[in-house]
């Protein structure tokens, strides 16, 4: 037999539908003969009604909301380089000219090998950004791969120095570079060069993981980031091999003016991410 005190304790989960069937039956049985609990249950239900009838927000647009939010977001460094057209190119040229003296002076001190715990690291990153921005489109992939390798070198060094947060930061920056370079990698005219690049990055990721694992402070977050980065390389390689043209090195110096269409299936095991993300309005 359910005591009055226990029944009272269970009234709120009962009203919220949180009790199992047998518990509900016991409460039902108690309420039938207990006017106080029946009255209290009515109050609980009325309170619930008040709580659940708080209305949702009227429709509001996300675009102006984002603009206001963006205006107050702190700037974090990112390697995403916008497409330079028109005034952006002029602005960049002006900016480069303005800081040229400072940059040159700082470059004298900022060794290209500066690590994330070095005070001059930000100068190094700035130089890299400028370098990448000024690199012709055709050569950009080469620079991106160099920078990706450099981030991994930093991550390995930071893991070795028991600085896992800095290692994570470098790994995240690496992820962005590879993400940006993925399309170029997949469509590269020389598949072997892509394979070599991926192999090299994989080896460096392995070195980061090894360094992380041999430290006493083997950090799960670093491990996760490395695993995700390896998965991403696998994905790039799979898609690259599925779409790569079957060229033989040295066989063809120029495109055939009258290409023969070869009926060839272009298997796509998974849909590719074209950046057009669906919107979810929770």
């Amino acid at each position: 037999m359910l005591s009055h005190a226990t029944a009272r304790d269970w009234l709120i989960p009962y009203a919220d539908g949180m009790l199992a069937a047998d518990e509900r039956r016991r409460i039902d049985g108690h309420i039938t003969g207990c006017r106080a609990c029946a009255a209290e249950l009515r109050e609980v239900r009325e309170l619930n009604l008040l709580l659940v009838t708080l209305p949702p927000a009227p429709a509001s647009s996300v675009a102006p909301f984002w603009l206001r939010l963006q205006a107050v977001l702190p700037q974090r460094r990112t390697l995403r380089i916008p497409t330079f057209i028109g005034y952006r190119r002029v602005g960049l040229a002006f900016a480069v000219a303005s800081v040229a003296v400072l940059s040159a002076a700082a470059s004298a001190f900022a060794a290209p090998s500066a690590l994330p715990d070095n005070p001059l690291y930000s100068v190094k990153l700035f130089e890299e950004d400028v370098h990448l921005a000024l690199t012709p489109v055709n050569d950009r992939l080469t620079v991106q791969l160099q920078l990706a390798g450099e981030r991994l070198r930093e991550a390995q060094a930071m893991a070795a120095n028991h600085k896992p947060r800095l290692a994570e930061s470098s790994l995240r920056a690496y992820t962005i570079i590879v993400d940006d370079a993925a399309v170029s990698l997949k469509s590269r005219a020389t598949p072997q060069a892509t394979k070599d690049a991926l192999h090299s990055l994989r080896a460096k990721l392995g070195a980061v993981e090894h360094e992380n694992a041999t430290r006493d402070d083997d950090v799960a977050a670093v491990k996760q980031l490395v695993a995700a980065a390896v998965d991403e390389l696998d994905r790039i390689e799979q898609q690259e091999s599925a779409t790569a043209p079957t060229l033989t090195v040295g066989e063809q110096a120029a495109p055939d003016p009258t290409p023969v269409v070869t009926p060839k299936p272009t298997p796509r095991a998974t849909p590719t991410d074209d950046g057009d993300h669906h919107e979810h309005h929770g």
Partner: protein
Amino acid sequence: MARADDAPSIEGDAEERRLIDRSAAGDQEAFRQLVIRHHRLVINVAFRALGELSLAEDVAQEVFLKVYKALPGYRHEKPFKHWLHRVAANAVTDALRRRRPIVSLDAMEQPPASRESDPMDVATRHDLQKAVRQAIASLPSHYRDTIALQAFGELSYEEIAKTLDVPLGTVMSRLNGAKRLLRERLGDLVHGEEANTA
């Protein structure tokens, strides 16, 4: 109260993870995508708590700003949505407490639903809602945070437990305590039915 459409797919998880990592590294375009995904959720939580769209948008901005700043420290062990709910619940309860002493007439300015023809009903309902919000704001913090997730976030007991990282029994106990206090503080507002039926 959990909504089935909230269940993320595996692909959705992977995409969200990518957006989170990129946002953490400073990619504002990725963060914009995250905001688009969760804007409605946060606005709804804030609006249910505050009753004014402009205030709700201010608090939602505060929530996303906190999230953006904290993202570099975010670990994927906990679903992003749970974390977001927690940040949102904290922000709205803080906002509720900040404006509690102010008797605002703005809350009465919500556009009335078209199906309601009686202005007295609308006014009474808005008074009730305002009283509920103020009563929630007056609760001790552990009760307030828990009931906020249920009333403003529309989370189930299980979701609240996951969001706050506490056992289910703790959620039950806190909601019990919170609702007992709310009934006391709302007084006649939750005794009306009894009076009517007595």
